[in-house]
């Protein structure tokens, strides 16, 4: 297992506070993404536990692109990953935000 953590400057403006949302299931080729509000001085934090070791750089890229797609701040993203491809990771992250924002409305 590998444990990774990435902190991103939040994109200021809207601050959404809803209860935590979970999307996805940990399994072979799959992951679960938990998105929650957190007091991070406006930043966003992503913590990942993954069964595939050595792809930290890929995770950083995927998360960077994800942060660019959305305006999020004070958000904590926690991931348990069973070997999902970057495509599935991006999909779940987008689904998590959509669910979270949907609930926030």
């Amino acid at each position, binding site marked *: *297992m590998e444990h990774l953590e990435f902190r991103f400057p939040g994109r200021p403006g809207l601050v959404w506070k809803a*209860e*935590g949302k*979970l999307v996805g*299931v940990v*399994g072979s080729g799959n992951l*679960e993404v938990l998105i929650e509000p957190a007091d991070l001085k406006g930043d966003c934090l992503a913590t990942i*536990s993954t069964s595939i070791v050595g792809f930290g750089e890929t995770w950083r890229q995927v998360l960077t692109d994800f942060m660019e797609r959305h305006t999020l701040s004070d958000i904590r993203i*926690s991931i*348990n990953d069973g070997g999902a491809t970057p495509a599935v990771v991006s999909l779940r992250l987008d689904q998590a935000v959509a669910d979270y924002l949907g609930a926030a409305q």
Partner: protein
Amino acid sequence: MSGSYLEASARNRILGLLDPGSFVEFLGPTARVTSPHLPELDMPVAFDDGVAVGEGKIGGRTVLIAAQEGKFMGGAVGEVHGAKLTGLLERAIDIKPSAVLLLFDTGGVRLQEANAGLIAVGEIQRAVLAARHAGVPVIALVGGRNGCYGGTSIVARTCDWIIGSEEGRLSISGPEVIETVEGAEEFDSQDRALVWRTMGVKHRRLIGDIDRVVADDIDAFRAAAQDYFGKSRPLALDALNAEQEFLASRLKRFEDCRDAREIWARLGVNESGRVPDLNPDEFENLASSCAVRRP
């Protein structure tokens, strides 16, 4: 909510069964009560350890509900997962809901957690009996891809009522295990038609192990479950003795049958080969006249 029960995630099955907005989850993912054993084996955990439990309403009536997430470790029961189920059943004794609904989707004990998993299943079974003894109906729902196997199948059979859809299965040993131990000639696990004939919900209904077959639809499960609210199966010694006699006589009646179709034919089913093709209504019609009855 209508929609395939089979396709839905555990949490979505719960949300679909309950009145909208009524679900309160206990020890949900944000609580992060995860398995203490899996990290030692270098395996990923799930934030809810693969089971969602909580309280809600169906038709305005309070229920306690648990749903196993079949896609996490095959829905297998580990220490935390098991404790959540046990805790839920113990809570039922306190608040006396109209029913406890247990949505099984599991291969049984989580072998990676060894004895902790085995003990957990034993504790769940005791808690089921305690809840039933307190007058709370415990209803098992079987309709996920994993079926309900292993020690958990024994728990299911300990419940008051079992409702299933034809995709579901209920049995102790899995098909691959039987094939490995007894050989493919004895049981070809690749022959899924054979597997479902032997362990599937329709067969279980016809030989009296489960109570109702519904369509693969969340609304259908909900409607069937409501029929059993406030209804308990007797749990006294004479009831258990009657069950024992029933099981012994059933075994005797069918022990020379080589295939489920022979059993169904003996029950008076015409064209027993067509049983898998019957839709749920047609099938329940058939079952109401032909199925073996539990005492």
